[in-house]
């Protein structure tokens, strides 16, 4: 897991996700940041993103639109996606999983919650 793209319009949220990932052993990964889905797609086009961690509610292009765009293009089939959102209710979770997310994690979460998700869905992480 060398390149991790964190997508959130909040600096605080991106910083928190990065700190959590570093705390669970990803301290040697390269972190990329995007403030919305459109910026994330630009990063993805450059290639090499192993894991994408995205929020849902963002201006310009939200997380669900990003997942749809990724699913439609089929260029990013190898990119593992984790959705982290405050709007993490179960009804929305099923739709997000159908759009290609491996897991949906509701805020607030602790580093150990993220660790469990990554271990469960990305064993080699």
């Amino acid at each position, binding site marked *: 897991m060398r390149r991790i793209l964190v997508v959130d319009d909040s*600096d605080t949220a991106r*910083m928190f996700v990065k700190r959590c990932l570093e705390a669970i052993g990803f301290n040697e990964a390269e972190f990329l940041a995007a403030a919305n889905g459109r910026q994330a797609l630009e990063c993805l086009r450059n290639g090499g993103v192993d894991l994408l961690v995205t929020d849902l509610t963002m201006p310009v292009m939200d997380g669900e639109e990003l997942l749809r765009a990724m699913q439609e293009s089929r260029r990013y089939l190898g990119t593992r996606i984790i959705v982290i959102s405050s709007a993490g209710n*179960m009804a929305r979770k099923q739709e997000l999983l159908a759009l290609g997310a491996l897991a949906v994690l*509701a*805020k607030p979460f602790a580093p150990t919650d993220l660790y469990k998700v990554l271990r469960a869905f990305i064993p080699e992480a």
Partner: protein
Amino acid sequence: MERAVMDSILIEVVAGVLESLAFAEVFAANRPLDFSHAEKVNSVAIEILAPFAGQLELHMRRAYLCEMAEALFTEPAAGIGREKIIDLLAELLNTMAGSFLSMVLAADVKFRLGVPREIDWRPAPPGDGAQWHFRVDDDAAASFCLCLSPDCYKTLRGL
């Protein structure tokens, strides 16, 4: 939903968010947040877009907000910048709002939130809205206050 039930859910939500993001212990405050000096308070709001309309507001003493920002960003508040400090407050509210709605709505009900934005402090929500005041750690005075708009409060009371 009875007010006491809503109170206990909100306290659980707020305590969980502050513990997770800022490692702070939160309690319900006996004394309300002192808003006599509006310049010492920062405020953000988030709209509930579905399944009903409403708004949540978070008002926090700037001194405590800066303290939290310093701990989170590991640099002095003066160097962090106002935008990032408001972003922290907005992220707190965003997380509280999502967590709160997840707990009060049935699991199959979808909800949608707007993007949090900074607002000016208002002394009290108009009409029949509700406020909850919280203190952090051993502080005697309230450090922050969460408000539900009247339409949102009415809807939740009717659930």
